[in-house]
């Protein structure tokens, strides 16, 4: 396809379709799909796509959408779906099932605030709610990042060292409905990049077994431990995938995280998704004024890349986390993970800022204010609420 003008949803729908079609010489692809704002264009695209060996099943609920994916994966097909917000909430039981069943489904989470009360705008809380479900999670900041990461997601998920499902998240409306320039893929390239989907534990007629029945504590313990080990394997597998991607597409997509101006930074800000792009511009501006500011975009959330993050923080002594999400009774969820990462670094001042909850527009001014606040600080305090509703 090459250089294209498209919305985030178009990009997602199209990339999923190409990835599904790439499995046409194996078991094919299948998706259960149910619409919810702001994801509807993805499934509309998929419904119109002419698969050579694939079927989009329009079900009656998100819970069933994941059910269809589970069934199709158990039958050995490549599977995918998309949802947001309360759709993800309704799907939760089966999201956990897919995770514990270790089926390599890819789901696009178009991040949207959970409700009621109803709010259609962006907030990472919906996909983060699934952080314990044994799914990998990627957070994308741009249309290109989204397209590239979806392909990476299939490659990593279906790798037998990982064999876990993957959420690929984008900002609702800000990415999903915004038209931008993006370099889209050709089918032959995707065919070359993605090997056929092989699910080693799929249902077999020559050797029948029961999948998912009663399991006692020792098998369960072992199972969870194996999932953790596979999660850890995701990082080296991701690196291999990035290498392969670069060979075919000529560019290297971001890995677990992206750094900018962190080498000699004294203060580092951490954010994800489109907010990280705004942050990028502010860092450029502050650097031009001589401040030693850097930023980290956390792209991979599960597994949480602790080692990589520590390395990226380096010698910086002040770290600010911008969380467009919140766990009531505690704080921002990225902050909680980063605090655990920094448990042996009491000398680093780590401060959480809650910004853009419920979809408020996070402007450069908001970020400047945060940096100014960081500069004044001598100690960290409880998570700071920064009102971005102007």
């Amino acid at each position, binding site marked *: 396809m090459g250089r294209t003008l498209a919305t985030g949803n178009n990009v997602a729908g199209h990339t999923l379709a190409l990835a599904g079609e790439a499995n046409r010489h194996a078991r094919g692809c299948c998706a259960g799909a149910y619409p919810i704002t702001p994801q509807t264009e993805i499934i509309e695209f998929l419904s119109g796509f002419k698969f050579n060996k694939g079927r989009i099943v329009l079900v009656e609920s998100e819970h069933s959408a994941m059910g269809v994916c589970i069934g199709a994966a158990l039958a050995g097909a490549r599977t995918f779906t998309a949802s947001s917000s309360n759709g993800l909430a309704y799907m939760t039981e089966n999201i956990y099932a897919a995770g514990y069943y*270790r089926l390599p489904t890819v789901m696009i989470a178009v991040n949207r605030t959970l409700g009621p009360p109803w709010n259609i705008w962006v907030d990472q809380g919906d996909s983060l709610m699934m952080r314990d479900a044994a799914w990998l999670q990627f957070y994308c900041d741009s249309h290109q990042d989204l397209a590239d990461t979806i392909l990476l997601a299939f490659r990593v998920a279906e790798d037998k060292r990982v064999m876990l499902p993957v959420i690929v998240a984008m900002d609702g409306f800000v990415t999903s409905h915004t038209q931008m320039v993006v370099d889209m893929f050709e089918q032959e390239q995707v065919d070359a990049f993605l090997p056929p989907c092989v699910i080693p*534990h799929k249902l077999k007629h020559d*050797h029948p*077994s029961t999948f998912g029945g*009663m399991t006692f504590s*020792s*098998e369960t313990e*072992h199972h969870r431990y194996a999932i953790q080990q596979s999660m850890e394997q995701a990082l080296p597998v991701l690196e291999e995938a990035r290498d392969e991607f670069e060979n075919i597409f000529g560019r290297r997509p971001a890995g677990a995280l992206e750094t900018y101006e962190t080498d000699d930074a004294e203060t580092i800000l951490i954010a994800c998704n489109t907010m990280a792009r705004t942050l990028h511009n502010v860092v450029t501006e502050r650097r031009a004024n001589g401040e030693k500011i850097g930023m980290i975009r956390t792209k991979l959330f599960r597994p949480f890349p602790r080692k990589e993050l520590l390395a990226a923080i380096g010698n910086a002594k002040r770290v600010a986390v911008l969380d467009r999400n919140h766990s009531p009774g505690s704080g921002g969820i990225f902050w909680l993970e980063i605090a655990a990462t920094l448990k042996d670094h009491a000398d680093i001042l780590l401060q959480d800022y809650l910004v853009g909850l419920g979809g408020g527009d996070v402007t450069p001014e908001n970020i400047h204010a945060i940096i100014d606040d960081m500069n004044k600080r001598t100690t960290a305090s409880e998570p700071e609420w920064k009102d971005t509703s102007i």
Partner: protein
Amino acid sequence: MMEITICGRGGQGGVTLAKIIASAYFLKGKYVQAFGVYAAERSGAPIQAFVRVDDEEITNHNQVQHPDHIVVLDRTLIAPGMDATLKPGGYLIINNPVDKTEFKDHFSGRKVATVDATSIAVANDLGTRTVPIVNTTMAGSIARVLGLTLTEILAALEHLGFTGPNKTCAREAYKRIHITTLPGEIHQAQAPAGKVRVADIFDEDVGGMPKIKTGSWATEKPERRRLTPPCNHVCPAGNDVRGFVEATGQANYDLALSLLLETSPLPAVCGRVCPAPCMDTCNRAEFDQSVNVREIERAAAELGTRPAPNRSTREAAVAVVGSGPAGLSTAYQLARLGYPVTLFEAGDELGGVLRTGIPSYRLPRDVLDDEIDYILSHDITAHTGCQLKREDMLRLSREYQAVFIATGLQNVSDLDLGETDAPAPVQGLHFLEKVRQGNERLDGQRVIVIGGGNTAMDAARSALRIGASEVRVVYRRTRTEMPAIHEEIEQALEEGIILDELVSPVTLVDSANGPVLTCQGMKLGPPDDSGRPRPIADTSPESRYDLPCDLVILALGQSHDISILPEGSVIKEGEALLGLSGAPFFVGGDFATNAGTVSAAIGCGVRAARHIHRTLSGEDLFPPPEEPIASSDQIRFNRFAHQSRAAVKTLDPDQRRRCFDEVHLGFQAGPGGETSVGQGAVSEALRCLSCGVCNKCDRCLEYCPEGVLKRDDKTDGYVFDLEYCKGCGVCMTACPRGAIYMAEL
């Protein structure tokens, strides 16, 4: 702290029992804890529950590892090592019936308390038959061991809402518990096994057979049994009625016939003349109609091939006096056993009453001759025209190794009808003999037959056939009490014979218009010695009237003439004689029993042959005692579809009343009435329910929920895999004929 482990099966109330014990101590002010190990709700699966009791608050929530006492609710859970974790001095409290002692093998050195809680619970209707709820009962026995008072444990029951029978059971168990210390040393606990490899979802070899042998859940096991079908039980000849009917149903006529020929050499005869008590007792009558066994026997005789006769192999020779059915039967059975037999018959032809007493329209000559020929084809020498008397018996006792007398009923009952010039009444049997010889005609005559048995019917119908213009049967009771076969009476009436019920003859006199029989009307009174209502003369004047007639035939019954027997002989149980030296004498048939049927006579012959054989060889061929009879309670009628009897053909009354052609023509098939004996026989035979005897219908196998029933050709039936059978009893219920029952383990 006291800790108790309860081992039971799902459904027995183990967890509730833990709560009952805990309640008892709670009411005494203690801290308590009661819980079970939870999995899925499965009746019959082994479960564990725990109780802790302490003076201080209990903070330990782990499962009990070293109990002070172990309760066992189900003795089938007892296994070696079960007591391994029990503290020294602790008790095993076991629900155990008095006669089971496996626990003694496994718990040496331990203190053991036992009570039969299951019996107590079942007697008080707690739970279902397969899963009796024994917890409240056991609470009583446990209380005793723990030192709780009866009041305290009853209070605990009340606290949890248990009333009535539960308290009764607890009380009972408290009283009846038996406490002992087993001799020997306490077994040491085994060292725990090393770490077991845990399976992974990616393993290639997942999905194997389940490891639980669910046979350990069963409290009962299915067993096959063979009851006695009522037809077999009642057959006077001892035929395997069910057996030959089943064989016929499979169109295996040879097998059917050979089964018949085991006990009866006269199937073609009996298939025509037997009153068929088997049909009267057939359980199918409660469903739609009894199976037409007689007709099937006739068909088997017609369609089957007889086995070749054997030659004699023994030295000992036997004499049989009388060639009626009893004599023929005995001779046949003995010849089959290898004895040379000599048959003595007073008449000119063999057969006794078969030939002289049953008219050919009921039993064609050629049919009888054919069966007698087959009997004689065995090593039997027959002498006809040989009237033996008492003095001949001594000779026989020296020339032969055994003698069997079956001379039938030689004496006929007479009736005094007064002095008369009218032609004298004729005895029915003599009349029939003359008819048989073909010399008799009664054209235009009016005949009265006095009597109600088969001879009366035979005489009446024969009179009709030789031209009588009117035939009346006069009987002093009603049709219901007539001893003749019902079909005979029906056919007689169809042929136009008139039945005068409740009439007794008084005198026969001559008159200007010919002989007249004066008759007295009767009423039925209370039963007499025969069990039938006693006929009492009606005293009203109209009750006496006259019947004109040309011939009176008497058919009032017969009795035996024992003058043939040596003096001082005693008939013992109808079977044996005393008082003669030399060869042993046996008697049978009507001569001995007056049973009055061909099949009874045949049965006598079978038994006589066994007696004789046992006396001469020592070998006892009498069958073992009968299994219980399969009553209609054992039959599940709802399994079967109603099916009316296969069609049989009888000659039209108008056609048959003037000739001696066989009246009854057997099975017919097809609307056009073409004879297809086989089709009719098979279809009728398939109506048999096979009461109490497995006929491999496969229903048990089809209904087994576990799929652990297999066909077993070696045992000609089925085998149950008791390793997996849960003892549910569905097979027992599925069997339509009571051939499976649930036995104690």
